[in-house]
Structure formats: C-alpha cells, structure tokens
C-alpha cells in the first residue's frame, strides 16, 4: 500500500468510499468486528446529513441498468441532531479518518451544518453535496459556478477543516464549476456524482422509481467519469477525488492517471463489501481486471 496525503490528512492508501454507498453501522451489524479489522477504505465518507431528518423517497428505489444501477434513495438520514447523537459516536470508532457529507436546501442550512461539524474533533473533513436545488434561487447549486462561489463565500469562513465540493456531472460545464469552487476556497473537489436517468415499469409504462428519476452509477458511467475527471484535473490545481464505475485496480489507476489524488468506490461495494480492500491492493501492485500498466 502506498500512503497518500490528502488535504493534510495522512491516509494508508488512495481508496475511499463514495458517500451514500456504505453504511458502516449497518455493516457492523451484518459482519461484526471483521468489518473493522479488514476495513476496506482509507477514509470513511458518511452518507449525506441534512439539517432535518429525512425519510427518503418512496419505493421502488432501485433499477438495474446494463452494467450498473439506478437509484432514487432520496437521502434518508436522521438529521443533524440525530447524526450527532447516534451516528457520529459510532463512526468515530472506525479505524480511519471520517469525512462527513452534508447537504442543505439553502446557504444558511449548509452553514448551520458546516458550523456544527467544524466544532467536532472526530471529523477530519467535510464534503459538500451540491447536487440539490437551492430553494431560494431554484438553481441546482452544483450546476452553476456562481451558486457554488456564493455558497463557499458563506461556509468557507466557518471552518478550517478541509472542504471538498462534490460536483454533479449534470452540469453544462463541470470544469467551470470546479474552477469556481477552487477560486472560492474549496480544498478539493470530488466527482462524479450519479448521472440522472429514468426507467419505465415494463408492465405499465409508468416511471418505475418512486422518485420518478434516479442516479445512474456503476461501470455504465465509467467512461463519462473518466472524461469529466480528466477535464476537471486539467482545469484546477487543488486535489481531486475521482469516482464513477470503479471495479478494479485498473479502473482506479486510470482515474489517477487523469490526475486524481484519491479514488472512491461506490456501486462495486454493493457487489462485494470488501471490494475497496481488493482495489487498494490492486492499485498498489498494478494489477486488477487486466494486467497492463496504467
């Protein structure tokens, strides 16, 4: 394993999880202490936390697509207070640094979340999920460079912890959004979030997902992710966390070759919860999938 420094955080290797694709508390119930001894990620990114609790979207929430998955989960979570009371103490016991992903429906909401976590020593860094509409402007925050700049203008002064902006691929010019984040003080960006998709119930022709549309992930999006990571890395100087359909060491090395500092594993963990550990080992030994050096 090759240690890596990311925004001042020492990590044992460059593989972490994508937010919302691994629940370490539930996995502890399923696998017991074996989860901790073989923990597959060099840092743990928790599922998105919102100010108020959310039930999430009505089922069905999943649809398998060719070489991937589409989900419409709707960010179920206990809300800030529930997270601080119940989840944070358990996640703080993981053997790796904790990155907390937050989302707000206004700049003030994001500011409240950032302030709350800025005061917690258990939290190594914050990731800002900007793939949602700002209810005050109607704009998807992460789709518009000016929205991202204004958001960071509000939250950057609130914490010294590293701020990672999770970019949405559903924007017309992703590198421009990344540049705006860098200029406004982001410490890193992460991409890609899921790509918007839709499926119809083959029996009725109606939308299958309870949330009507969903986010596509898995190997189906890998080529798109590589292109977006490549163009973002060419545009900015701050570190990039790359993700999108990574299944093996070769996929991860391609994203690092494009300029990524860390690589996140998401949907592949659904197929095997220990996939992150395998991919980290394959990155270290330049193996995985097929053996040509990238």
């Amino acid at each position: 394993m090759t240690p890596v420094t990311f925004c001042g955080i020492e990590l044992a290797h460059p593989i972490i999880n994508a937010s919302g694709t691994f629940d370490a508390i539930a996995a502890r119930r399923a696998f017991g202490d074996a989860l901790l001894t073989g923990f597959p990620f060099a840092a743990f990114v928790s599922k998105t936390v919102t100010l108020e609790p959310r039930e999430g979207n009505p089922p069905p929430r999943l649809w398998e697509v060719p070489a991937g998955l589409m989900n419409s989960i709707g960010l179920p979570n206990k809300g800030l207070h529930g997270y601080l009371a119940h989840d944070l103490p358990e996640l703080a016991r993981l053997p790796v640094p904790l990155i907390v992903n937050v989302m707000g429906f206004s700049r003030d909401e994001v500011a409240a979340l950032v302030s709350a976590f800025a005061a917690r020593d258990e939290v190594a860094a914050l990731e800002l999920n900007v793939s949602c509409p700002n209810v005050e402007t109607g704009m998807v925050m992460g789709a518009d460079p000016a929205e991202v700049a204004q958001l960071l203008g509000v939250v950057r002064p609130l914490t010294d912890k590293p701020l990672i902006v999770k970019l949405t691929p559903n924007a017309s010019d992703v590198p421009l959004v990344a540049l705006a984040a860098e200029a406004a003080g982001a410490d890193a960006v992460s991409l890609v979030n899921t790509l918007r998709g839709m499926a119809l119930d083959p029996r009725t022709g109606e939308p299958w997902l309870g949330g009507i549309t969903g986010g596509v992930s898995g190997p189906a999006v890998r080529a798109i992710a590589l292109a977006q990571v490549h163009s973002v890395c060419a545009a900015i100087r701050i570190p990039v966390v790359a993700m999108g359909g990574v299944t093996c060491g070769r996929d991860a090395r391609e994203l690092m070759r494009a300029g990524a500092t860390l690589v996140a594993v998401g949907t592949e963990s659904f197929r095997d919860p220990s996939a992150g550990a395998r991919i980290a080992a394959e990155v270290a030994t330049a193996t995985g999938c097929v053996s040509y050096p990238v």
Partner: protein
Amino acid sequence: MADRVQAPFGTRRARVIAHDRHGTYTVLRCVDPLGPRPQAGQFYMLRSAQRWGGGDGQRPYLPRAFSVLRAPAGGAELQFLIEDVGPGTARLCELRAGDELSLLGPLGIGFTPPRERRRALLVGGGVGIAPLAIWQDQLDGSATVLLGFRDAAHAPGAELLPGARVATDDGCAGHHGLVTELLDSELDHARHAEVYACGPPPMLEAVRALCAARDVPAQLALESGMACGFGACFGCVVPTTDGYVRVCVDGPVIDASRLQTALTSGAGH
C-alpha cells in the same frame, strides 16, 4: 450478543454440487466450508463466479438475494430455491455441479421461535416456500405447513416440505383456490398458532390481515429488490409503523404487527 448469525466480511466462493429440478423450480446445492451455518429466514447474495453479466439486456450486474432453502445439520451444504424469471435467475439456473457461486452471507434477521405455548404454522406461496423448509427442519418437523402454487408446473415445489397441505390456483393439486383459504379454516381451530409466512405480496397481505383479525402473531419474510444485502444502498425499504426500514438488515423477517400492509412495491424486476 448479536441478533443474527453474522457473515464473514466479503464475498467467497462456493462450489455447486448439484442442480435438482422440482417442476419449474431449480434447487441449487453448494458447499460453503468457510461460512457459518445460517438461521432459518436468513438470506445470501448470490451470483455466478463466472459469466455474471452480458446476458439479456447486458444484465445481470448486481448479485441477487435468496433465502436459504436448507442448510443440512452437520455439514457445509447450502441449498437455494430458484425460479428462472429474469437474467440473474436465468444465469443461476444454468449452473451445474463443479461450477462456482460467489456468495455473501448469511445476512439479515431470521425467524424467532413461537411464543410460549403457540404452535408454528407455516404458510408459503410459490418460490417463497424457501425459508419455510429450513424452518421446518429446525422446528423438528412439528409444524403444520400450508403451501400455495400457481399451476402444475409449480406444484412440484411442495415435494420440498414433507407433509405439506397444498392449494393450487388451477386446482391441479390439493385445494382448488388460495393457500390463505386453507389458513383461514386452519385458524378456526388453531387459535394458539404463530404464523410464519413467505410468498408474493398479495398473499402476505392476506396472511397479515387474517392474523391481525384473529389476534394471531405472524412473522413475515419479506422480499424487496436490493443491491447490496447489508444495509449500504438503502434501496430495499418497506414502510412500517416506525417509518421505512431496510429489509436486508432490519428484516427480511418482520413481525406483522409492525406493518400496516405487506403490499410492498419493487420486489425484483
């Protein structure tokens, strides 16, 4: 003390030793020397170790969840009941002795023994009979078993649970009608029963309503489409009196009193 048998962390290989047919159903038998013995009602995520993907519509991609059908005591054998209904189950039904499964499990919370002085009454429909077979074994064969099937192609599934009373939609075997009609008359003279049920959502909902009306406790093994099986994806939720719960980590066996309806959406596609 954990509320379940916990799974080894990560997928492992299990060699297929036999592929048996019972009408339209396939029983896949494999050996899992590295895994713990499961509780009745627990499940595994399965995929073929080779050629998983690239089938109809470039699927399957994700593993598929199956309740364990049987885990004979004193060995390493696991049995799974599979009906070929899509690209994932089609690939699993192709497997023969010597092929390998990639599996994760046992997962989830299984059945709990009958409350004091109650007698177990097992009600299954279609491929949902699977978790009742291992439960019948673990209850030492003492439970009353009622099974329902669609037609003559499916009715041979009843061979898997010795002594079962059968209902068929088309009258080809046993009672001509629904298994819940058998349950209704059984409950007339078995008030001190505890019902264990698994089957299609309309059957489970009928079981839930019948048991609720008669104040008979019921444990329902639910199905829901799931990507992971261990609480990561949040895709398999069902509504309960406590809000949405994940079938994979809070179930699949859920006490009927926690449900307003067993008519859940999104079970497979």
